[in-house]
């Protein structure tokens, strides 16, 4: 599915247009702003990593449309479970800039309280979160609520047994969950063709789940697909599988060197389909991207980046004894004792001459 061509031309679609009928230029400009800001966040975080302020960073460069458009389609009471690369999703859910990087600075286990933005902390174990989303959806169902659980995951993740099991469970119970797969063509050094021969959307269908394949660099297509899926889930229609076809334009993480495995021509090809450029072209063609708006967006991006940087650098190292916090919710005397011992041990150093 494509509603905006790479050149920024609007393609009519009798089937999908109704789903984005209300998306006017103002809304598109909002999406544009989000995308520019998250790209700026991404650049800043990468820079912070290069400067030694972050231990690692997984850039989302190129996946802005897939993440922003899908996240903006959600209601605040929907609940999102993601992998580690969905920083734009977290931004749209309301995470503060510094909350996006604190985990990558290795000073905390989580950047935010999941209940404050209705989004779980990033999941590092590939695919595991798809089951959490499915279970959460069972809870929504039991509550009789009309919220939706959304699972974000990558093309590589589709090979993990957990993802297939999540599809099985979701289908079995018609659970209100949206499986949002960002096919960014790579899982570290492995091309998507190693994970599947056909499309990933076909995978979803095989589990009896309505599935869509959309241009993930097209904000309108992603919006339409996400809305269709959410609507189905809210109205008791069960799960949907969305394959958003996009591209990881950067390295897997800042520790990765894609030149070892990726043909440069491929990247060049995808540069032409840059999601921001595309929306820019469309809005420009409609004279809906005036200079003052661009300037405003740039200002927001810059100030967000500055806030991110300042917040990041100011993040304190964790208190040594905090490593004993929250292992258990109920009291645990043995661990308390260990903490006391360790405090005593540390005190020994301070006491030492």
């Amino acid at each position: 599915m494509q509603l905006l061509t790479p050149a920024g031309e609007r393609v009519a679609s009798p089937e999908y247009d109704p789903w984005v009928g209300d998306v006017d230029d103002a809304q598109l400009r909002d999406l544009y702003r989000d995308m520019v800001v998250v790209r700026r966040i991404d650049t800043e975080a990468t820079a912070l990593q290069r400067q030694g302020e972050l231990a690692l960073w997984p850039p989302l460069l190129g996946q802005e449309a897939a993440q922003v458009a899908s996240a903006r389609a959600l209601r605040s009471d929907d609940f999102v479970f993601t992998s580690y690369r969905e920083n734009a999703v977290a931004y749209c859910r309301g995470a503060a800039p510094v909350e996006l990087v604190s985990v990558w600075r290795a000073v905390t286990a989580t950047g935010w309280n999941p209940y404050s933005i209705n989004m779980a902390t990033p999941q590092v174990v590939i695919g595991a979160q798809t089951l959490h989303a499915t279970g959460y959806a069972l809870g929504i169902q039991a509550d009789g609520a009309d919220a939706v659980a959304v699972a974000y995951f990558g093309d590589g993740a589709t090979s993990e047994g957990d993802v297939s099991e999540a599809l099985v469970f979701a289908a079995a119970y018609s659970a209100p969950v949206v499986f949002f797969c960002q096919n960014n063509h790579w899982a570290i050094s492995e091309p998507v063709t190693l994970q599947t021969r056909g499309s990933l959307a076909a995978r979803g269908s095989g589990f009896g789940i309505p599935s869509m394949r959309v241009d993930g660099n097209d904000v309108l297509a992603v919006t339409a697909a996400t809305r269709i899926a959410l609507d189905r889930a809210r109205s008791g229609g069960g799960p949907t599988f969305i394959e958003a076809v996009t591209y990881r334009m950067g390295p897997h993480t800042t520790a990765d060197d894609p030149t070892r495995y990726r043909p440069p021509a491929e990247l060049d090809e995808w540069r032409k389909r840059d999601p921001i450029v595309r929306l820019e072209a469309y809005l420009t063609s409609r004279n809906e991207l005036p200079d003052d708006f661009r300037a405003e967006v740039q200002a927001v991006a810059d100030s967000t980046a500055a806030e991110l940087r300042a917040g990041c650098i100011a993040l304190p190292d964790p208190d040594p004894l905090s490593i004993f916090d929250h292992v258990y919710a109920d009291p645990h005397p043995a661990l308390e004792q260990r903490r006391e011992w360790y405090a005593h041990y540390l005190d020994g150093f301070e006491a030492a001459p």
Partner: protein
Amino acid sequence: MSTLTLSKAIGAGLRRAMETDPKVVLLGEDIGKLGGVYRITDGLQADFGERRVLDTPLAESAIIGAAVGLAYRGYRPVCEIQFDGFIYPAFDQIVSQVSRMHYRTKGAVRMPITIRVPWGGGIGAAEHHSDSPEAYFTHTAGLRVVACSNPQNAYTMIREAIASDDPVLYFEPKRRYHLKGEVDLEAPLSGQSAGRSQVLVAGTDVTVVAYGALVQTALDAAAAAEREGISIEVIDLLSLSPIDYAPIAQSVRRTGRLVVAHEAALTGGVGAEVCASITERCFEYLEAAPVRVTGHDIPYPPAKAEGHHIPDLDRLLDGIDCALGRPNSRSGMGAGS
């Protein structure tokens, strides 16, 4: 007071928990209409409906992973793993998700998940139906691990497990499912009792620590030893993680001798931890090295030979003799080198 079998006592505890708290939901394979292959959940789906007692597709990782999501949403899922040997497909979800989510979210997200595991050998079963995987979980921070041994504690502990805001692995000794006993259905719950080991028989010569199915064997051993004039103190761990060492250490300070028994393999089992921890606590009081009476370091053998694998009364008495320095099977064998 009611007379119940251990299996019925668990069922009664589940029912009670479901009545008390609408957030308690059950997930597992065949737990609905069939009531589980051991009928523990018999009648619960009929009474509480399909939304609270979920027959799940055949996928253990998903059972636990879905429970994580339900807990995220404020539920208290109770998962049944059909047999001990089928918990491994869910291992990743248990050790990387269930055990760490509260830590990962700095306490924001609780994981009050109970994982019920029909457990252990001695029932003549096929491969993978007699495993003792408890040590994998006691080595995993963030989990609590308990093992019931009679109808009363089975009833109380399943309720406590469900009431706990932490994830609890609840091990059910299959071969004691038919053990009958008086159960006080109104016995008070204790937030602490999950961590409390219990002296079942007082004694002065040797401290015997057991849990699960072997508690009964330890009681038999105490009776048999008594006839020989040897006084055994029997302690039921009840909680395998954390272990409540106070009663054990007190006991060993008096007896000077410790025997720990389990069905699981010797190497790296719970017995190793108990022996090491008690040696740390009671070194000066020990009159002999703590003795472990355990399964061998072998895969579970064909059931017709299982009596040679898991410790029985004779093996335990032999271990007690060893702790007492009396003639026993290890005498003259050396303990390796």
